[in-house]
């Protein structure tokens, strides 16, 4: 790892300007878990780490807090840790998906340092990307080495030219919950739908999000819960703790008069971005919840999958994970 300077600036603007002046040499540190991993592996070598935790005042408070908003929604600051979010009892159960996603990521000790913002903006875990000696598409190489290599953990949906899976467990939850994110840029704060934060590799295979260099993610904004809103998150892992999921699913819906409405389905760890499944939504919108219709929806969701040579198993696996999430979100008993 290269030597670096830790820079503590007390205002959001000062921090932002410091990085945008020389984004090649400077970067933000939140929990630092992903950033230091990359630096230790020699993937990144910034000279200066700008400490987001040093931001004081109103912005600092907003970035560190979880609060109900005037419109009836909730705002989760970008510096809130996964551990704080998972244990935040006042957040209504309508938003359960994001709490569960936060509470099942990584390990307890990582969750105590990892932040919501850092989680959404972390770089991919693909082992070709993470190996300092291998030059893959993400690092400016000519091809995605996973295509002909060992791609057991890579994308089955939306892949190409890069086949990473988006690493953030919060990703599918924020998309399913129809959240927005607030970003601080040169012209002040702006709020965009969460799914516009994530960029598919067709745009620029070396990046996963749309923030301009030096822009700061300030908060995740959850819209007011719909009457009767429920949500659920589910995952499957090879190892039950300290491992990334093989697939995840987040579901938001209401069940009114015996039928499913307002459904949003998003899958994680199956595509280069958190993957909204319109196919599943189409099958389920207006349907009565049942194990059969969930199985059909899961099939529809994955009918567009294009697995690589070594990851076809992720198709049935993601179907299974989505079925669980649908059962949990609608409180439909699981089949024996």
């Amino acid at each position: 790892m290269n030597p670096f300077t830790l820079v503590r600036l007390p205002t959001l603007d000062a921090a932002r300007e410091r990085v945008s002046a020389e984004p090649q040499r400077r970067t933000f540190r939140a929990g630092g878990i992903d950033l230091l991993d990359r630096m230790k592996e020699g993937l990144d070598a910034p000279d200066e780490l700008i400490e987001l935790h040093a931001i004081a005042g109103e912005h600092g408070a907003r970035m560190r807090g979880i609060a109900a908003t005037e419109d009836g929604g909730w705002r989760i600051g970008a510096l809130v840790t996964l551990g704080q979010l998972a244990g935040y009892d006042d957040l209504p159960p309508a938003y359960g998906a994001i709490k569960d996603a936060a509470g099942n990521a990584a390990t307890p000790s990582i969750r105590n340092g990892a932040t919501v913002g850092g989680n959404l903006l972390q770089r991919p875990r693909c082992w070709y990307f993470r190996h300092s000696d291998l030059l893959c598409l993400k690092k400016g190489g000519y091809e995605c080495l996973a295509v002909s290599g060992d791609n057991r953990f890579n994308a089955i949906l939306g892949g190409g030219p890069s086949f990473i899976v988006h690493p953030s467990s919060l990703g599918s939850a924020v998309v399913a919950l129809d959240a927005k994110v607030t970003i601080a840029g040169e012209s002040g704060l702006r709020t965009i739908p969460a799914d516009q934060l994530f960029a598919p590799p067709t745009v620029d295979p070396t990046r996963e999000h749309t923030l301009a260099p030096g822009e700061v993610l300030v908060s995740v904004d959850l819209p007011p819960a719909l009457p009767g809103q429920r949500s659920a998150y589910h995952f499957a892992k090879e190892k039950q703790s300290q491992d990334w999921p093989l697939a995840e699913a987040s579901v938001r819906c209401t069940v009114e008069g015996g039928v499913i409405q307002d459904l949003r389905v998003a899958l994680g760890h199956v595509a280069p971005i958190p993957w909204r499944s319109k196919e599943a939504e189409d099958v389920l919108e207006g349907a009565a919840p049942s194990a059969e219709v969930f199985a059909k929806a899961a099939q529809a969701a994955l009918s567009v999958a294009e697995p690589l040579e070594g990851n076809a198993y992720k198709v049935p696996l993601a179907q299974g994970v989505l079925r669980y999430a649908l059962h949990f979100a609608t409180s439909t008993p699981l089949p024996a």
Partner: protein
Amino acid sequence: MAKTEIKVGFGDQVKAVSVELPKGEAKPWDADAQLEVVGKPIPRRDGALKVSGRAKYTYDVNLPGMLYAAVVRSPLPAAKVVSVDTSAAEKIAGVKAVVQVAEKGDAVLFAGQDVAAVVAERPEQAWQAARAVKVEYEQRRFVTRLAFAATPDAPLVHRGAVEERRTEGHVTEGGGGDAQGNKRPLRPMKKGDVSKGLKGATVHEAVYETQVQTHSALETHGIVARWDDDEHLTVWASTQSIFSVRDELAEVFDLKPTNVRVHTDYLGGGFGAKFGASAPGSRLGTIAARLAKQTGAPVKLMCDRHEEQVCTGNRPDSIQTVKVAGKGTALTAIEVQSIGTAGIGTGAGVGRNAFAVYTKCPNILVDSSDVFTNAGPGTAMRAPGHPQGAFAFELALDELATKLGVDPIELRLANDEHPVRLWQFEEGAKRFDWKAKRAESKRLREGKARIRRGCGVAASIWGDFGRPKAAVVTCSVLRDGSVEIRNGVQDIGTGIPTVLAQIGAEVFTRPLDTIIVRYGDSELGSSVGSGGSQTTSSVTPAVRNACEDAKEKFIEHVAELLGAKPADVSWANDGTLSAGGASITFAQACKKIPGESITATADRPATYGNHPMPFLGAPMPQIAGVQFAEVEVDTWTGVVRAKHVLAMHDCGRVMNRLTCTSQVNGGVILGTSYALMEQRVMDHDVGRMLNPNLESYKICGAADTPEIEVVLTDVYTGANNTGAAGIGEPSTIPTAAALACAVFDALGEPVRRLPMTPSRVLAALGAVPAPKGLG
């Protein structure tokens, strides 16, 4: 010489035998021995030091003026070194020396091989300098895929002679013939005629595959080397064999072995990869000593996790074709044809399970070959060969049992001859509620339940490899009333110092905390390496002899004080010594010791008994074990959870129930991890390991660990005076096999490839086509 009668056996099968004890040998603690301290669940002495960070490992040794070394490793799997330019590295601040390890023209055989080394004032300077060494290579063709390496089209890995590493403590299978291409046969194990046994029998044949597993000890390989003068070298080494470190360094630097001193106060795991001064795939020990000599300063060289994963050894993989045949419940033929790769190293055999457990089968052939590949060398790893062999064979046996329509336990009982193992199978089945559980898994399977459950069972075989003469132990009764035991053994983590103290406390009937144990230093008397599960059975009998001899001398001293004959001195449990109406306390008698201490030195003789059954016709006892496993499988995701393992093990006479149980827990966890997740992943196009870390190289954690129930079935072997036998290795042999059998029971379909990840389970369920082979 006079014969001594001792009681040997186990459970209610105890009998008296008479043995001729070697000279100076204490009478064995046999089935009748009533022991107060030995066998009790006594916590390890250094537990608090370890959990509080006060225990200083090699990694923690910091000497005044110490420098830090780093090794430059080849990024290519096969190449010729064209040039090495160290000039840029030499200019980096703090750098004291840069040396070449590979010379121009040398061949690189795997990615991770030593090429050059640097030493600097700070570790980060050394890493920076290592990156600045410019090496030009001429790339060569390479092969890392086992199945391809075994074909005639594959590039040849070794052009010259193959360097064989021998690991002490292991009866190696040894080379059996000449290499053909990259393939070199190991000595086959054979009896009867398999083709005869196949005739008219129900036959099952299938291919089984296991993965490369890395040792992944928590403490990486490393050493601190300091030259005291030109003739004397002192090192602190993370080793499981102090004396092999000493001898290797003495040989390389042409020193007298007694002029090399080796310290290992604490060791953060070895599992077979930490013999000798270096690592199986890196000469790091000699590099450190060479740099220390060159710079005149102590040098520390510790591997980072990436290096640890690629060049410090591994458990070879295997592709095993297993054929097994039976009539009724009788096995009539077993044949295993196996290839495996230990990278550029040797020793990819599949152990003795198929050959030596179900010995009623008259016709057996186990034929295996090493296949060389351009990858880091394999080396001994906790029960070398056995977990892979057990997995393939026991799963094949269950598949045959299904074809024969017999219960897996019934089939095993009908073909095993070891009385302890038979007893473990029967007792275990009751305790595990085998019949009811198998009925339940059948019900779930037939009802196509979403969550299935399944049970499996598998056997363990090992030998008591306790070594004669290797450990020389000194016992001293000191004037302050304590008893000191000295031996240069290292504690690989089993808690051996605690066990040695128990022996002392038992012999002297003294409180445990008055027994001092000095260990982990080559100056304290020669000892064994911790391999082959032989440490306890090699060292405890020598400790007992030394203690008994010192006690005898002490009694002579007491007799003199009391004006009596030694034979008349009686020794009460509270330490009161009396004879002819006079008495003295232990403390008083100690104070009157002339000089500093009463001291005796002793070793242990060769093993002289092997009840109830010898190990493969050898003079030592065979150690038996059986494990039962229960799994839960989610058919929607393919995730397997290990729920429960019942581990029934023979460990001779158990010396300490707590540390022994801890060994079994460790064996089961390692086996579970091997069964469900651990796996070296290579990219065969670039010849590199893709997961050289502890993130994507997955090791099972607390949440993945089954409930472990350990039953230690004491066996009195009459093999040595304490009755100790080994447990570290036998306890990991059957775990993956039992789990695989349980998954078969749950699904009704076998998963014939480790690890049993969701990908393979979903393939077994027919949800996807089977993924491409490991090869």
